[in-house]
């Protein structure tokens, strides 16, 4: 890993209004790796992801893609950057008024005028990849939650992005489908050279796909390393997370995290 990172996050402070959720978070993402950000509920994982893809503007700190700072980008530059990123949202975030195929075809139509026949084949490929062949003409409300999520994944990879962001890819999927999705992530990375940034707390998924793990706790990075490093670490929170041990009482943690 002596390469130059393609994404650098430096001292990121972010939050909503007066509530700060991230406290000086720094991390690097290298080309072709699968980086997994973990942490308990409410630790700021999703906020980090939203800041990294420009959905939220940070309070302070820097986020650089290939050396370019996104917080200084204007809308056009950000749009050009986002074309190279794919985002798979937690519950799919499909457009309800469009069919599955139209959902996936949307970025293809909006960016770059693609021949309709080629586009249809490409939509078919993406659906085949996520195991949903033939669902193109269905409307999103005819799909189950797991299927919506997979269509969301298909839409995220529609444009062959260089980096794909996943918000909780395996939550609410059955173990077989979840494992299939993990396998697909590995294959896509291997074959298409995609860099993958995953936010999750699914232990099975973490063990299967993670090249590198970043753990957040109460808005701070408390651990960075491989799955092998996890076994050796003595950071108590990490050991607790991977050991699936509960807090002593739920109240105790509530008091700790209460603001002020």
């Amino acid at each position: 890993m002596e390469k130059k990172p393609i994404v650098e996050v430096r001292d990121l402070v972010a939050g909503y209004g007066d509530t700060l959720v991230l406290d000086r978070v720094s991390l690097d993402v290298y080309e072709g790796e699968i980086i997994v950000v973990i942490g308990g509920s409410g630790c700021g994982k999703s906020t980090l992801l939203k800041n990294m893809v420009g959905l939220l503007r940070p309070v302070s700190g820097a986020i650089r893609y290939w050396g370019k700072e996104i917080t200084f980008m204007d809308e056009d530059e950000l749009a050009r950057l986002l074309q190279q990123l794919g985002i798979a949202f937690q519950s799919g975030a499909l457009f309800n008024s469009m069919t599955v195929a139209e959902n996936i075809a949307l970025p293809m139509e909006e960016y770059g005028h693609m021949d309709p026949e080629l586009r249809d084949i490409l939509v078919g490929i993406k659906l085949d990849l996520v195991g949903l062949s033939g669902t193109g003409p269905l409307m999103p409300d005819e799909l189950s939650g797991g299927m919506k999520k997979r269509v969301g994944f298909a839409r995220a990879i529609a444009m062959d992005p260089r980096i794909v962001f996943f918000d909780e890819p395996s939550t609410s999927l059955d173990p077989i489908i979840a494992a299939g999705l993990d396998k697909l992530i590995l294959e896509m990375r291997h074959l298409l050279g995609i860099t993958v940034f995953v936010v999750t707390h699914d232990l099975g998924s973490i063990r299967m796909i993670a090249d590198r793990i970043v753990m957040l706790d109460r808005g701070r990075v408390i651990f960075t390393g491989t799955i092998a490093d996890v076994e050796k670490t003595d950071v108590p929170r990490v050991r607790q997370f991977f050991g699936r041990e509960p807090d002593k009482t739920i109240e105790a943690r509530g008091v700790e995290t209460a603001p002020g």
Partner: protein
Amino acid sequence: MSPAHPTDMDQKPEAAESRRTVIAVPDALSDTGGARLLEEVAGAAASGSRAITLDLAGLKRLDSRGGAWLIRAVRAASAGGARVDLAGARGETAEVIDLLATSFAGSPPPPQRSTGFLDAFGNKAFASWAELGDAWRLTVDAVYWSFIAPFEGKGLRWKALVTELNDTGMRAIGIVSLLNFLLGLVIAMLSAAQASTFGVQIYVASLVVIGFAKELAVIMTGIVVSARTGSAIAAELATMKVYEEIDALKGMGLSVTKFLIAPKVLAILISMPILTAIGFVMGVAGGFVLNAMSLGFTFESWWNQTLQAATIRDLMQGGVKSVCFAVIIVMVGCHNGLRVTGGVRGVGMATTRAVVTDIFLIIVADLFFTTIFYYFL
């Protein structure tokens, strides 16, 4: 793997082999390279080649877009009656092709359900009949939970009723007053122009009061309430349905009708006649303002004429209509809200449908009542 279906089953293998064409795939399948490949393959198939081999040895990198071009070429060849073999793929390219195997095999086209005219008509008729049944059951349910259940000790959500009264009644007073007042002005102006040719301007007062008592106040109020409240009811219930809040209520063993619909029914049944009465007064006031300003009558002469013209029967007609319109608005709103399908988009459609149905039914009911009063009472 042999991605294309054999289309030359009846031919002898040697014959097919003799017409085999080998096409080398370029090192990268960009859009230009892909288009050229497609042309070559289609050309080969058209010139009678029954078997085409795509030589992938030169292909260095294959992304999904390149894969799409390959699939398109294979399909074009199959359509031209040739079978295609992919050969010589190496390393990652071969793995990508394996990954895309299902796509090469081609997913079958979705079954097309043919619907003829009679089919469509029949389906529509059955759907309408079923919907009428649903609406009827909902209405019976609503009547029970609004008027009978509270007396059986099953309770009523008083707090919700007060909130609904405020939303559907109090907060509508301003707009109902204003619109009826303006309508009163308009009617008075229109009729004054006619009356003045006969010198009977004083009858404008009668016309306005009778018109508003029987018809204008209630129809104006009905339309305002259906646009304000009918749409709000449909949108609220539809959103609750989409976000599974309705299911949550049912799952707790609570009656949706008691919880959500009964307060709305009672509130609108109370507020609609009151709003109509306010609308009536404001409309008549609008008529007076024009009388006083432009026709030069005193308050007294106008008041006498008005009292002479207005009868209890006219007021009753408006009152009966207002109660009927209230029932239409609340039931149409609830029914459309609860039958929403199609997620978020359905919410907008349910709301539109509710308001359109409201206004249609209001006009139809208006015609019905006016006819009854005109011919029979």
